């Protein structure tokens, strides 16, 4: 998917700088990518990867618990905090999770767009009709503990 098509789907990308950082890959999704995994598609649905101990339901609570099981804890700011890595979970109008992004050491965010590319972007640039809005921010120590 080229930049023009991405800008068509996510108009806010036009107002900010973003770059494609990998070619399309269907092996993993944004939820896995935010957890720094590229081998599986994570989703709380029958047949897909989801931690055994977390409710297999597409709710913000389940997503919070899933990332907490990886050492993340809820936080309030999307700004970069030294020594921490952050994840943002987006939800649609009904409150159902749609997307997750991971903060990079430079303070910008990285997202895997469905089966399509990875991009580096401003967090708010993906808000809109496809992913809704950022509903949850979490962070963990860059060394892996909360």
């Amino acid at each position: 998917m080229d930049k023009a098509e991405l800008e068509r789907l996510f108009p806010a990308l036009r107002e900010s700088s973003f770059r494609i950082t990998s070619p399309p890959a269907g092996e993993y999704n944004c939820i896995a990518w935010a957890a720094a995994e590229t081998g599986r598609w994570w989703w709380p649905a029958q047949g897909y990867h989801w931690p055994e101990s977390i409710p297999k339901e597409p709710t913000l609570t389940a997503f919070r618990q899933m990332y907490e099981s990886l050492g993340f804890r809820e936080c309030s700011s999307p700004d970069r905090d030294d020594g921490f890595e952050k994840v943002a979970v987006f939800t649609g109008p009904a409150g159902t999770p749609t997307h997750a992004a991971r903060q990079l050491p430079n303070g910008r965010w990285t997202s895997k767009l469905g089966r399509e590319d990875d991009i580096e972007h401003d967090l708010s640039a993906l808000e809109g009709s496809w992913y809704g809005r950022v509903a949850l921010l979490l962070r963990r120590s860059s060394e892996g503990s909360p």
Partner: protein
Amino acid sequence: MTMIAGLPTCFAGINSEYIARPDECEGVTIGAGEDARKVSQSFRAALQDFFLPASREITSRRAVFMHLASEWKRDTAVLSSVHAIALHPAYQRIIGMGREALPWILEELSHRPDHWFWALTSITGVDPVPPNDRGNLQRMAGAWLKWGRGQGFTD
């Protein structure tokens, strides 16, 4: 009535088992020669092939499947939610095609692993993917293709 060699001759209708039934041609010479029989059979076969072409019907249904699959892929390309991907109307219509769609889905899966698993399980009622392979699309596709070969859907 057709005149052949100066005699009134009656040819069969296409639904007749015979070249002509005697009661259809009472008082006339019946055209019941071998050539007439072949012509009638060929005409009947051609007519049936035109109106009820099984091969053309399958091609058409497959074209519908391909159209729906293309629409589904386009509209769900940037989605992560398996629920949203599977609830897309085109995907639901493919599920509605039932077992007829299985060979086409498996063929798609053989070209490129994609989220056909929900549809496959919905249609067949089984899930051959081992628990450890869940989420690994390559392995999930492999499990389904193996299942398909075992069921005779693919070579």
